[in-house]
């Protein structure tokens, strides 16, 4: 193990550590983050009222909208001079959300990811190819930091250019691959088609950033002759590595020395009993730059507190089964219908959004996004060229807002199916 003392810490000790850290974190945030102080004040809570993990449920929730309302740096809890890195991801509207890390935050992140690599069999002799996107997205650099920490040889290929990815795997002797599961499957199929499976040294696959099934896992494992593991994370909390599977492949260990998970009823906000399925909520204990208390992830899952066969004491989360909001994950990118709505409102030239429907599917292991838009008076011109112009304009604006391409179809007014008078906005045909 990378950090045996922490990873196998008895739960009572772990709770004590969490309590100490929580008390400090709340005190610090109360002083440094005005939005948090205001919410505490509104509840009549003082930092002194929080004496440990048992008081956690008293604290106010935080939401993705907080990141938007305090954009860009309003929720940061350190001076900007302490921040050494920022990452960003899409928000619920056109505006992206931004998170920041201090030197120590990056250190903790690397440590979490290093625990995962070590458990899954990677070490300084490994060649770790990172096919997550690099850049503002946390995937690439997040996995990179952990791989570097264990002393592995990092091959930062980022996404795209599949033929070269495969050539790199062969030539550089890649033993560990990190990517989205759908890309791994795509790579596996290409490798099969090229007939180069025998030339690979690949042993371990670490896949995340989008939902996938156990069937998909088996297919990838068989096609590539590797073990495939699930990794979980979100940039608001840290990035990839908040939780990860161990060799048992039976739930993802959440690193509880850094994060406290809770499962709540998304409607009432009540904390649910152990083992129940509900919305996953995170509190960051060690984050300096961008700490969050009781952050609503909107992911629906359950927690398993039973001791794991790997010897770790940290709780395991089951694969999220859905969302308590309408966020879609398409090609690893978070997409909110409201972002699409915003674009259409701009294009329509009227004060109402044209009716639309989002159709998500998976074709050849690649997510597809189609947006049907009902033609409105203002959008319809007599010239075919102007219709095409409208279509192109919507396509371009969606690309820049969502960060992924969408195929736009203009359709007849009132042609989008409605149930009980309300148009069904999202049709997700993917079988996940």
């Amino acid at each position, binding site marked *: 193990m990378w950090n045996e003392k922490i990873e196998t810490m008895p739960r009572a000790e772990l709770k004590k550590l969490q309590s100490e850290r929580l008390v400090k974190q709340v005190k610090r945030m109360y002083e440094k983050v005005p939005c948090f102080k205001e919410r505490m004040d509104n509840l009549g809570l003082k930092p002194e009222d929080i004496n440990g993990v048992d008081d956690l449920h008293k604290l106010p929730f935080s939401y993705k909208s907080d990141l938007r309302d305090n954009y860009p740096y309003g929720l940061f809890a350190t001076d900007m001079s302490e921040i050494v890195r920022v990452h960003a991801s899409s928000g619920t509207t056109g505006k992206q959300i931004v998170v920041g890390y201090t030197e120590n935050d990056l250190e903790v992140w690397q440590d979490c990811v290093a625990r995962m690599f070590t458990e899954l069999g990677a070490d300084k002799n490994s060649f770790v190819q990172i096919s997550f996107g690099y850049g503002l997205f946390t995937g690439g650099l997040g996995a990179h930091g952990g791989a570097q920490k264990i002393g592995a040889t990092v091959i930062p290929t980022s996404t795209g250019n599949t033929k070269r990815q495969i050539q790199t795997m062969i030539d550089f002797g890649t033993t560990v691959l990190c990517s989205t599961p759908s890309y791994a499957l795509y790579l596996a199929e290409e490798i099969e088609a090229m007939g180069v499976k025998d030339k690979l040294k690949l042993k371990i696959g670490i896949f995340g950033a989008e939902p996938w099934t156990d069937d998909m896992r088996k297919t990838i494992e068989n096609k590539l002759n590797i073990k495939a593991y699930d990794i979980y994370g979100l940039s608001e909390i840290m990035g990839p590595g908040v939780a990860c599977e161990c060799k048992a492949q039976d739930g993802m260990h959440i690193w509880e020395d850094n994060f406290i998970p809770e499962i709540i009823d998304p409607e009432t906000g009540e904390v649910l009993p152990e083992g129940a399925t509900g919305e996953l909520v995170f509190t960051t204990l060690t984050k300096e730059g961008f700490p969050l208390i009781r952050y609503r992830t909107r992911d629906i899952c359950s927690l398993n507190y039973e001791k794991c066969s790997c010897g770790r004491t940290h709780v395991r989360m089951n694969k999220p089964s859905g969302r308590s909001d309408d966020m879609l994950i398409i090609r690893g990118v978070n997409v909110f219908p409201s972002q699409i709505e915003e674009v259409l409102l701009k294009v329509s030239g009227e004060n109402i959004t044209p009716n639309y429907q989002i159709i998500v599917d998976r074709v050849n292991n690649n997510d597809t996004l189609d947006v049907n838009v009902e033609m409105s008076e203002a959008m319809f011109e*007599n010239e*075919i060229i102007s219709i095409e112009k409208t*279509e192109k304009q919507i396509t371009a604006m969606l690309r820049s807002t969502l960060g992924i391409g969408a195929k736009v179809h203009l359709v*007849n007014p009132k*042609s989008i199916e409605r149930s009980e008078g309300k148009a069904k906005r999202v049709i997700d045909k993917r079988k996940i």
Partner: protein
Amino acid sequence: MKQLSIFVENKFGRAYSIIDTLSANNINISALSIADTSEYGIMRLIVDDCEKAKAILKENGIMVKITDVLAIPMGNTPGELSKLLKIFTDSMISVEYMYAFVSKKNDGAVLVTKTNDTENSISALKKMGISPLNHEDLF
């Protein structure tokens, strides 16, 4: 001259359903032309009762607009169209689209066209002794 411009998705049976809707409501279609790409088309129609046709189509969820176009009478003999187009070319007017039909009422061919400059087109035609037709001239 008024023309109906109708948005058509390229879907099976779409054109039929539009024409069928009009015929069921006794609208007489004199001329038709379709401009299309692989996904969309615009159907352009000259009908006897434009306003009624528009109202009916709208009710049926079909996107329609009424557009002003030029309807120019021409003889049903070789060289007539070329003569008309020369008038536009000589006046630096470009044609965006055109189609033609034969009208029972004025006993000749009619060219329906939209140019980039309607006013100049009319004066160029008038100079050559040609008057564009009104709706009443045809129905």
